[in-house]
Each structure stands twice: as C-alpha cells, then as structure tokens.
C-alpha cells in the first residue's frame, strides 16, 4: 500500500509509543510535568519495570497496531536498578534496530534514549523533537487501514 489513505492534514498528531523504565524515564516524565515543561500530547507512555523487559515483540506489536514511532527509554548505563538490565536493552536494541532498518522503516521511527528521573526537561525535549520529526515524515507505512 504505497498510497496511504489517511489525509496528512495540519491537525494530524502522530501516535508515539514510549516505553519508560519505572525507575528513571517514567520519573523523568513526571518531573517534566512538575517542572511545567511543555510537550505535545502525542506520546503514550507504557511503564515497564526495566528497559530490559522490553521485548522486541512489544515494539513490533506497537508498529503493527498503528504506532507512528516507538521510543525505548531507560536509565543511563551503569545506573540500572537491576544492575545490568540496560546493558541487555542495548544488545536487544541493536538487533531490533537492524530488523526495523532493513525492513525499510525510517530510522526516526525507532529511537533509544537514556533519561534519568531528574531529567524532566530532557524528556520533554525528546518527545517534542520526535513529534516534529514524525510530523514531517507522516503516518507510518505499517499503520493498518482505518487507524488514525
């Protein structure tokens, strides 16, 4: 389906699925709110106990169900609540990235970022940047028909 049926109107907001680690980036999202940093309402946050819990299957499912971008966020390397969880994320992400790239999906649609609980501004900026990038790209080519 090369011609995506969904109109790219000005009002279109991308759907972004953000996987957030309970101990860092989820807190980061909280402090972004508390610090009143403005961010677009495009992100749907899914809390996981550790970024290492994020199975590549979750990411594929998000894409198949109509996500325009998927963000994988976790603690900075060395700060993992479970000692080596984010090291495993790094390895998994390498494979995941390879599949998504080779599949022909734009690299902006899958991103990895390390955000700690105190970095509210970083979180807000990240969401803002990704939203702007995806708005430029338009809806994901994997989005099923009928899903906005």
């Amino acid at each position, binding site marked *: *389906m*090369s011609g995506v049926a969904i109109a790219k109107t000005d009002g279109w907001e991308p759907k972004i699925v953000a996987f957030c680690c309970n101990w860092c980036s989820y807190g980061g999202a909280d402090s972004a709110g508390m610090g009143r940093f403005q961010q677009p309402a495009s992100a749907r946050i899914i809390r996981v106990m550790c970024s290492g819990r994020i199975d*590549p*299957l979750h990411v*594929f*499912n998000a894409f*198949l*169900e109509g996500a325009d971008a998927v963000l994988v966020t976790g603690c900075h390397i060395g700060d993992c609540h479970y000692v*080596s969880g984010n*090291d*495993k994320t*790094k*390895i*998994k992400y*390498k*494979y*995941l990235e*390879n*599949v998504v790239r*080779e*599949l*022909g*999906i734009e690299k902006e649609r899958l991103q990895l970022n390390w955000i700690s609980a105190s970095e509210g501004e970083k979180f807000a900026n990240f969401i803002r940047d990704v939203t702007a990038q995806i708005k430029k790209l338009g809806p994901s*080519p*994997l*989005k*099923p*028909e009928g899903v906005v």
Partner: protein
Amino acid sequence: MQKGEMYVGWSTKDDVRKRGGSGGLVTSMLAAALDKKLVDAVVVLKKINEFEAVPIITSDINEVLNSAGSLHSVPSHFAKLIANRNLKVALPAKGCDVRGIIEQGKRNAINMENTFIVGLNCGGSMHPVVTREMLEVMYKIKPEDVHGEEIEKGKLIFKTKDGKENAITIDELEEKGYGRRESCRYCTIKIPTNSDIACGNWGVTGDLVGKATFVEINSEKGARLLQNAVDAGYIQVQKPDEKGVAMRTKIKGVMEGLGQKWKDKIFVPMDNRLEYFRKELEHCIDCGACKAVCPTCSCGDVSKCTEYHFRSDAYKMSMYHLVRFLHLGDACIGCGQCSDVCPVDIPLTRLYRRFANPIQLELKYEPGMDTRKPPYFEVKLNE
C-alpha cells in the same frame, strides 16, 4: 594421529570402494565407529531413487555399508534429526549441517561430546524437483533413465542407464535458473573446518583420482574417529603429496570467491524494502514449515514466533516473520531449508539473509563456525 594432520585414504572393502563416492572412506569410517562401539548409532541416507533419499539413524553396520553415498540432489539436513535425542552418534555432514549441529549444541539440544561430525566438502546441492525439470528441459533426458551423477571441472554430468554421459557446465545451467540451490551459490563455507574431520575429493592427485578421499583432522574427536577406522582395518591412509594440498587450497579459494561474487550479486541494496518484503510474504499461509525445518531453531512447538502471532492481527506484516527475522539475525546459517520446504515458494532464505548479513558482519559473528555464544544472549556486548 593429531589435530591439523592431513591424509589421503580409501576403504579396504572392494565393493564399498567401488560403489561409494571417492573410495568409500566416509562410509567405512562410520561403519568402523559403529563396529568398535565408538558410537551407538550412525546417520546415513537411504536411497529411494536417484533424486530421493531419506536420512535414517541406524545401528546396523550393513545398512551403513549399503547406504546411498553422495547424492547432489538431496538437500537434507541432519541437525534437527539428532537434536533432543541424547544419542552417541557419528554422522556425515555438509558445511551447513555442521553449522546447524553446532548451533543446536549451543542451545543444549545436542551433546557435542557425544557427536562425531564427519564434514564433507560441498560445492552445493540441488533441489530434487528443479533437477527433474532441468533434466527434461536442459539435458533432454527422462529423469527415470538417470543412473548416477557427478560434478567434474565445473560440469554437471548425468549418466543414463544406456551408459551415455551428458555434461553441461554449471554456469550455463545457473544462468537459465537451474543448477544449485540459491543458498548454495552464495555459500562461502566449502570445506567444513568446523567439523571434527573434513573429507572430500579435492586434493586427491594422480592414480587415486576418484578412488580416494582427502582427509583433514580438525579436532581430537576426529583423530579418534580416523585412528579407530585404521586400527579396525576398515580404511587405509597415506600422506598426501604437496601438489594435492596446494590444489585443495586453490579449489577452496576459487569456490569461496565465486560464492562471494554471488552474494554481492543477489544482495544488492534496495529502495522501498518494506514493499518488497510485504509482497514476498503476502502469500504466506502460516504453515510454520520454515520454522519446523530450521536447523538453528530449538524453541520447540511453543515459541514466541507462533504463540504471539494471530492472523487477524497481522494487518500489514505477520508477527511470525518479524520475530523470525529478529531471532535469525545472529542464528541464520543460510542453509536454504526454509526456501526448499515453503509450499508457496517464498524465497525465505534470501529474506532472512537480508536481515542476518548486516548484523553478523557488524558483530563479527559467524553462527556455527565456532562455539562462541550468540551475542544476543550475552549480558554485555564485547565491543
């Protein structure tokens, strides 16, 4: 006998030497291993006709001595056959069989201590159905009339029952879309150095051509296997001449170069890949045959790729294939079994290799070539 040594050898039994390929050394070595209780079972091919053979696990020496020998049009794979059986077994294996067995060993489905792998040099195998068609179209002979085949000097030779020999070069056949399976064309493992003992007719010189096998010992187990066969009087070995060793290295180099060339030709960079993958996978009927034959998959019946895949949810791409693309990233050995069994003829090996090539190159990991743990299972990536 030690690791790293090379020999030229043949069977001492006249009928085996005549019937088996290249002096019947492999057949006799397997029979000797069974005879002297080095192993409990041996895997051999039981011939049905010129194009078909079934692999069987046997403990009967006569069955081993009467086995099919080498057939180019039987792309069987032994790794899954011996997995999860806890056998003490010796088996002949092409490069991709060896890689499959080692990958199963890494996943604890095969005990490598108890498995003696007799590696066979392999320039490629052919699909039986394609071979039949090729015989009718290219050679203009009936498949039923064929009585033996051979590859010599880049030519594929079919002998008919009336004693005639028909030869066409492999390059010509492959130009027309016949010949070796696609995965064999771009395979770059021609001499299985990862096996216990590598056997083949490359490097046999002089009077012995066609009557002896060149052997290279790659491990302690391999040395034990060969020593056992010599002691039991099943085979005879001698040192190879320098010319032979040089010739073997040369053939290996040429074949691997050709493989690399095919690889560059098939895996050209491509735009609009998503459309390409969607088009290729559009006929998939979810039979799961590609997973069932995959020699590196050891998940069993309950696995991530099948349990989380629902046909009704696969709006634009099937979850089954997405998970397989990911899991085979560091496991795909490019054996071509998935393409062979696919009932709707999806070129699956080509698709899987598209995902596996870049990541295997990046991580410098060749599955099945050594006992290195797959990087996916490491806690921290060694960079």
